[in-house]
């Protein structure tokens, strides 16, 4: 291993500008003559717009749906049979379907002036009964979010298994109901857009905070009636994404429309209240699950009903049914199960649309499955980690195709559990538990395991019916005249450190110092097409593509180098940033000089494409990589206040080859902290009228440094047999089990009461209610 290539914890190149306060986010960009946009948003969850009165004299600064000539409602098509598209208008047309929906756009010289205008607009609504709770909304007779549908079900699916035989053989059938609440994603930078029309380029130039610039370009072109060549999307520094920044937003369309209509740049910078109220939310799953198990806790069969509250509209491009599709496919987790049956419903309600958040469906899935495993363990009287281990696919069975037709490529799942058991020191925890705490709090221990399919390929996305199916990921690599390297990738790095890690991949192949590598990303005008950064795919896909592109450069440099070094081509190798022959070597700058400046020195057999290559890459098979992990936590529960404190938290994870272990660890820590947010703090609740109850950070609690434990982490490394360098995707993973780990730990603490909390966040209120309910039953 070199100290700059794959496997080295190279310090991040991007840190310098951020530490100096010289990052460059969308809101930091100023355009001459720009206007700021603010929006009048619906104050009712469901209603008909009777009238809109623009402030007098402001008619050319205030816009409704009627003004948006040429702007189509956003449609996210799906090929899944029976799917009902729920078009999302840039500004509400006739009806409003959630509190916060954009109704009127206002343009001012400053954001404050735009807000002044918005405050002066009068909109009259006829309020309609809202559909708020997904289980109620699923029933016949519920208020209809989309009148023409006849019901509120965007998609229903059903997978049947041979449940009769496992039911007959099972000693125990354990059923539980779980709910993962709706929440917000809360990147520290909210969504932001600055759109301007460039007549010279005949192009709409859109700076926008996105993870997926090429997909946003496709969407904007489609809904604005432009050709894609006429749209350039640039994502500069992006302050976190986590899934939020993957869809075309109504405000973005309006900003683009304004820039085109009036020839002036338009900016919209989301504020935190807009994020919490009006941006797409996430999670909100409901489960009823049953495990059919034998006396030992071996799960023979699994049955589930999954309902996802998708909100009012379907977001482009990933649709509103990806969550349910993922949930249905992932419920069996890392376990070898004989029979599996699942029904899923994607239900629309009068709430903001749902967009996949880090972990996509699987935190909900794991919350249900991993807590069900613990319920089985309690039923058969065994330690939960033992029940996990006997049910897991053994390392000897890899590769293994599970009951949901997922092919795990490699790994030792039970080994990860064993390591976590050792790290958390189960004997010591059980002793402490038995001893009791001086302050009277109850100690609980919880485990959670998962397998994380990542970098899903063409076949997987095609099976989900979405329109934007990823194919071959391309990367461009170009040797500059002075021997430096430029990499061009269509993914976007917004915290993942890819300006460093992709340079490390190049360093691995070329031996070049990452300091001499520029990674150009997030700009449709400068980079090859990519579906972007989501699904923990970028280091697998773009990393693999960079590796392949650099290998092409090696071949091209060998030809030129052999000529200059006066030796045979196969005597030349590229290493340490130099081209080396039997009797001497050259710096890359010599190759650059000759190709660019002194082509008269080139050999006759030179590759005429030069020292620049765009290369496509896709792992084969393309079903994705399978990272896995087991987490364990010790919590203390204050049964008087319901407060839960995380005392210890360990993670054992295997994501194959680590390009940069420091960055991998950082992703694990950050994901686990977000998981703790989901587990204990974060919730976007609505009242019965569909009014959001968390609109500021006074009501919406993010975990801070005092709530997050000092995670302890161990890595296992089982390289993927299918990918370049054995890399597996891992960016989302540690959000997945955390709510279940904390939930299992809390329920372990509450065992003496027979109480269980089966809903996130595990707030003091819910803990006290569970204890109270259990006491009521006992009495």
């Amino acid at each position, binding site marked *: 291993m070199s100290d700059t290539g794959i496997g080295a914890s190279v*310090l*991040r190149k*991007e*840190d*310098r*500008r*951020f*530490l*100096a*306060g*010289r*990052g*460059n*986010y969308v*809101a*930091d960009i*100023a355009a001459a003559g720009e206007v700021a946009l603010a929006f009048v948003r619906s104050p009712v969850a469901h209603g008909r717009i009777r009238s809109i009165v623009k402030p007098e004299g402001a008619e050319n600064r205030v816009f409704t749906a009627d003004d948006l000539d040429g702007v189509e409602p956003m449609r996210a098509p799906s090929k899944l049979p029976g799917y009902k598209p729920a078009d999302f208008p840039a500004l509400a047309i006739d009806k409003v379907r959630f509190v916060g929906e954009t109704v009127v756009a206002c343009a001012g010289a400053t954001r*404050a002036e735009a807000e002044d205008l918005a405050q002066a607009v009068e909109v009259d609504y006829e309020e309609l009964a809202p559909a708020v709770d997904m289980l109620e909304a699923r029933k016949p007779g519920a208020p209809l979010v989309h009148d023409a549908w006849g019901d509120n079900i965007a998609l229903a699916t059903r997978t049947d298994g041979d449940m009769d035989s496992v039911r007959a053989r099972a000693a125990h059938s354990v059923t539980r109901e779980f709910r993962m609440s709706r929440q917000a994603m*809360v*990147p*520290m*930078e*909210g969504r932001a857009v600055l759109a301007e029309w460039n007549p010279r380029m005949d192009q709409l130039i859109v700076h926008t905070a996105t993870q997926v610039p090429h997909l946003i370009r496709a969407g904007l072109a489609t809904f604005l009636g432009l050709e894609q060549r006429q749209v350039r999307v640039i994502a500069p*520094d*992006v*302050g*976190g994404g*986590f899934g939020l920044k993957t869809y075309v937003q109504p405000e973005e369309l309006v900003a683009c429309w304004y820039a085109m209509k009036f020839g002036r740049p338009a900016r919209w910078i989301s*504020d*935190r209240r807009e994020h919490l109220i009006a941006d797409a939310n996430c999670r909100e799953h409901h489960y009823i699950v049953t495990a059919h198990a034998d006396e030992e806790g071996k799960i023979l069969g699994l049955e589930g009903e999954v309902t996802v509250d998708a909100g009012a509209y379907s977001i482009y491009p990933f649709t509103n049914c990806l969550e349910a599709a993922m949930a249905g496919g992932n419920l069996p987790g890392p376990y070898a199960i004989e029979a599996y049956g699942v029904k899923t419903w994607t239900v629309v309600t009068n709430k903001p649309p749902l967009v996949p958040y880090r972990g996509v469906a699987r935190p909900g899935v794991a919350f249900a499955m991993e807590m069900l495993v613990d319920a089985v363990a309690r039923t058969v009287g065994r330690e939960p980690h033992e029940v996990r281990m006997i049910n897991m696919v053994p390392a000897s069975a890899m590769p293994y195709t599970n009951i949901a037709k997922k092919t795990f490529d490699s790994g030792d799942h039970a080994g990860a559990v064993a390591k976590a058991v050792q790290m958390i020191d189960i004997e010591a925890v059980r002793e402490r538990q038995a001893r009791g705490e001086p302050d009277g709090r109850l100690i609980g221990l919880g485990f959670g395991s998962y397998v994380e399919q990542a970098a899903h390929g063409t076949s997987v996305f095609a099976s989900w019916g979405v329109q934007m199916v990823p194919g071959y990921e391309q990367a461009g690599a170009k040797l500059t005249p002075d021997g430096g390297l430029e990499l061009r990738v269509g993914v976007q790095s*917004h*915290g*993942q*450190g890819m300006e460093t890690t992709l340079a490390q991949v190049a360093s691995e192949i070329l031996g070049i110092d990452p300091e001499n590598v520029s990674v150009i990303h997030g700009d449709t005008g400068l980079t090859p097409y990519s579906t972007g950064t989501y699904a923990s795919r970028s280091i697998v896909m773009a990393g693999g593509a960079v590796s392949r592109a650099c290998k092409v450069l090696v071949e091209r440099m060998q030809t030129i180098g052999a000529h200059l070094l006066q030796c045979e081509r196969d005597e030349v190798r590229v290493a340490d940033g130099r081209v080396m022959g039997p009797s001497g070597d050259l710096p890359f700058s010599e190759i650059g000089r000759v190709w660019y400046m002194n082509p008269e020195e080139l050999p006759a057999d030179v590759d005429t494409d030069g020292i620049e290559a765009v290369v496509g890459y896709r792992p084969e098979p393309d079903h994705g990589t399978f990272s896995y992990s087991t987490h364990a936590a010790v919590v203390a529960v204050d049964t008087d206040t319901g407060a839960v404190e995380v005392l210890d938290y360990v993670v054992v994870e295997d994501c194959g080859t680590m390009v940069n272990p*420091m*960055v991998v*660890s*950082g992703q694990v*820590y*950050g*994901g*686990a*902290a*977000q998981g703790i947010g989901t587990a204990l703090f974060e919730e976007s609740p609505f009242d019965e009228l569909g009014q959001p109850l968390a609109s*500021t*950070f*006074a009501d919406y609690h*993010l975990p*801070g*440094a*005092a709530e*997050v434990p*000092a*995670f302890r982490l161990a890595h296992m490394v089982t390289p993927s047999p299918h990918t370049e360098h054995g890399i597996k995707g891992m960016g989302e993973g540690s959000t997945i089990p955390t709510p279940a780990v904390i939930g299992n730990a809390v329920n372990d603490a509450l065992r003496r009461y027979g109480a269980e909390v089966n809903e996130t966040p595990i707030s003091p209120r819910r803990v006290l209610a569970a204890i109270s309910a259990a006491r009521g039953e006992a009495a």
Partner: protein
Amino acid sequence: MTEISLTINGAPVTASVEPRTSLADFVRDSQRLTGTHLGCEHGVCGACTLEIDGEPMRSCITYAVSCDGASVTTIEGFDDDEVMEDLRQAFTENHGLQCGYCTPGMLVTARDIVRRLPEADEKRVRLELSGNLCRCTGYVGIVRAILAVLEKRRG
């Protein structure tokens, strides 16, 4: 509009501002010092934290007009500060930042912790960071970085 005179990063500034303009918007939009970030605009997240008269404060809920006569230091104004230099190095070595958005406010708070609480332990550091939210790092690298600088300065 109200006329104000203040010092920003050591340089005198005189400007005419609308009373409703926050100090954050003033330094960002009028002074083009965009290292001060807005994360919530209601005083909770800490991204906008900068120094006024040597103390960390929230620039999103402080109006520029209230800073007449004050000395303001933004993240761009600490380039020659020894503590900040140590913190910047420690943040990168401990992977205390990912997307970078919370980082300027986090550094200003970290500098205050290091100077005000030289004996702080991990628990205290975590408590003192309550007013600065980070969504990326899980705080692991941030806490380690601050502890490393405290340790270094304790000798």
